[in-house]
């Protein structure tokens, strides 16, 4: 799988770039929306949660801390969900290519993941800049953020790959996923802090595969601390296991995918 992805790296990169570039095709300032959109989102959260609804994160005193907390979880989650959802539709969307060209299937899932990751990179850079401008400090723990994001996106790519194959055969999966991901987001402490959960729910969080990623991001970005040592193996596991599982499923059904499309 990796060999094929490497062989098609230029195709993937070019398509991911053109995806980013043409996401806002037809608008006057086009590419700039890739920056303006997340920027607006970050600024709105900052304004709302620091001035209007001043919520404070437990243990961190700053006025902007909840906005930062929210962005630290929400922006990566959006990219992750994008990876899964668009990944799941990748084969169907690109059926014209798959039906006629001998391109390895996983290339199309990877292409979406790369585009989502690029967009995430822009968003997180903006978040860093806004944090500094609004008077926050970037702790050294920020250095760990790209690694965690990469693992999170790897996890998203893996899930996308798993569902992309299944979705070809049972197209309802795409619909179910949209709902499931929303539910999953609310089961993960992204828009709320985990301390508000009843204790039995807090205990259940460790069965949520997305929790280590979000918790690690919160610790690094909001708390300025390195992630829990125990979270690294969990993150690495999901980032490796799901693409592997996706690949095994793909290999099993590869011959039938192109017949069905």
């Amino acid at each position, binding site marked *: 799988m990796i060999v094929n992805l490497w062989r098609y790296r230029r195709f993937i990169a070019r398509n991911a770039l053109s995806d980013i570039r043409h996401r806002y095709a037809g608008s006057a300032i086009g590419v700039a929306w890739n920056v303006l959109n997340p920027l607006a989102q970050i600024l709105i959260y900052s304004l709302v949660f620091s001035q209007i609804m001043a919520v404070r994160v437990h243990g961190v005193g700053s006025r902007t801390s909840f906005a930062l907390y929210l962005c630290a979880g929400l922006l990566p989650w959006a990219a992750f969900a994008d990876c899964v959802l668009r990944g799941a539709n990748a084969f169907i969307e690109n059926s014209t290519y798959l039906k*006629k*060209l001998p391109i390895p299937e996983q290339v199309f899932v990877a292409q979406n993941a790369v585009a989502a990751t690029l967009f995430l990179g822009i968003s997180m850079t903006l978040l860093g800049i806004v944090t500094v401008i609004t008077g926050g400090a970037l702790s050294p723990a920020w250095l760990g953020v790209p690694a965690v994001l990469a693992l999170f996106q790897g996890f998203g790519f893996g899930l996308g790959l798993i569902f992309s194959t299944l979705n070809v*055969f*049972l197209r309802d999966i795409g619909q179910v996923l949209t709902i499931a991901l929303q539910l999953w987001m609310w089961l993960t402490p992204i828009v709320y802090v985990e301390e508000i959960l009843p204790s039995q729910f807090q205990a259940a969080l460790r069965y949520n595969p997305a929790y280590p990623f979000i918790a690690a991001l919160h610790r690094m970005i909001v708390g300025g601390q390195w992630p829990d040592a125990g979270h690294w193996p969990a993150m690495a596991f999901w980032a490796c296991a799901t693409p592997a599982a996706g690949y095994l499923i793909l290999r099993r059904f590869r011959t039938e995918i192109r017949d069905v499309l």
Partner: protein
Amino acid sequence: MSESVISVRDLSKRFKLYRSPWDRMLEWITGGRVMRHEAFWALQGINLEVARGECVGLIGVNGAGKSTLLKILSRALYPTSGQFDVRGRLVSLLELGTGFHPELTGRQNIFQSARLLGFPEQDVRARLPAILQFAGIGEFVDQPVKHYSSGMFVRLAFSLFAHLDPDVYIVDEALSVGDVFFQQKCFERFRELRRQGCTILLVSHEMEAITHLCDRAILLHGGKCVSEGDARSVVHDYFALMGQSGEPAVTQSPARETSVGDRHGQPPPLVPVAVQRALASAPPGTHAEKGTGQSEIVGFAISDSEGSLAWTTPSGGTLHFWYLVQARDRIDDLNVGIHFYDRRGILVFAVGTFNRGITLPVLAPGGRALCVLSVTLAVQPGEYTLLPQVGGLTGGSPEPGLLHDRLESVPPIVVIRRSSIGPAPFYGLVDLPTHVAWTEDV
């Protein structure tokens, strides 16, 4: 036989058809113990060897499995069983423009597509001028392809593919691209590629192209190879299959000319042996339902000037259409005629004995007559369908309006190019008599 470039051994492809996605789930869950699919064999036991530099035609009615075979060879589909091997790089015109991204310019797309097909960038860079010149789309090459007309799009795609110099080409119905001049360029390019030793697998419904370009042909029907060999004979089998005429493949018999008597004492036409034999069996095609049946075509055959049965002629050549007519009632105004339609369904030419002021003898009830129409097919190369018919006058009208009998679904005839050297002798539907006079004294 020289080195084979494509070899296919006992290749089969099965599609599983499920009535609903749940049936598929059920099969998976039960590990195949419950079978809910219907198997559809698109290809069964195909064997094929294509040597380097050969041009092989692949023909068959829609759904015969041609595209499936091509897709397997270009690795866009996986076979169910059997092996295949393609030595060297393969480019398939199935993919014509599919790798093109609408937002990229023509030039960027050329590189992107070549990359997709695994051709090194410097190769393409070197050939870029030739590609652009061939496509002839001028300034548009630096515009996003979404602004292209569909003609320009295909021309660019075709130009790119025609200049990649792969070892094997798969061409699927791509020859009908662009206007006549571009088509000529395409044909010329194909001949050039063949001279360079490129192997070509050509799929077309234009039998003229198959007989003209291919050394060999293969006829697929219902996923099986039913005929293989010399392009002309395979094309003949194809028409036989299409018209379901059950017409035996007639081998060229020596044209011993004999005469058959006509009971009305007309000068008897010389009927070649092959034609006599063909007239003795039921005519090809089906009888039209709306004929009155006052007279009937009981035998029909086509021959060339040598007296062999024929279904093809070079443009400008003559074919003889033989009718054996049997009268039910007394017929005193028999009109024997024929219609020719091109593949777009345009009536190219229709003629009957009335048109030419010929009065045929009166037929008594049960009487028979043999009539031959010799038509010079000065028309553009291509496939023509025929409607041989017999009829009579309707009261008062000068035009023959009464249809006695007509043969439908007769296997078409094919007019082929006169020669592959030099320009086409004319463009357009028909070759009109043209005389040229000139002088330098002006």
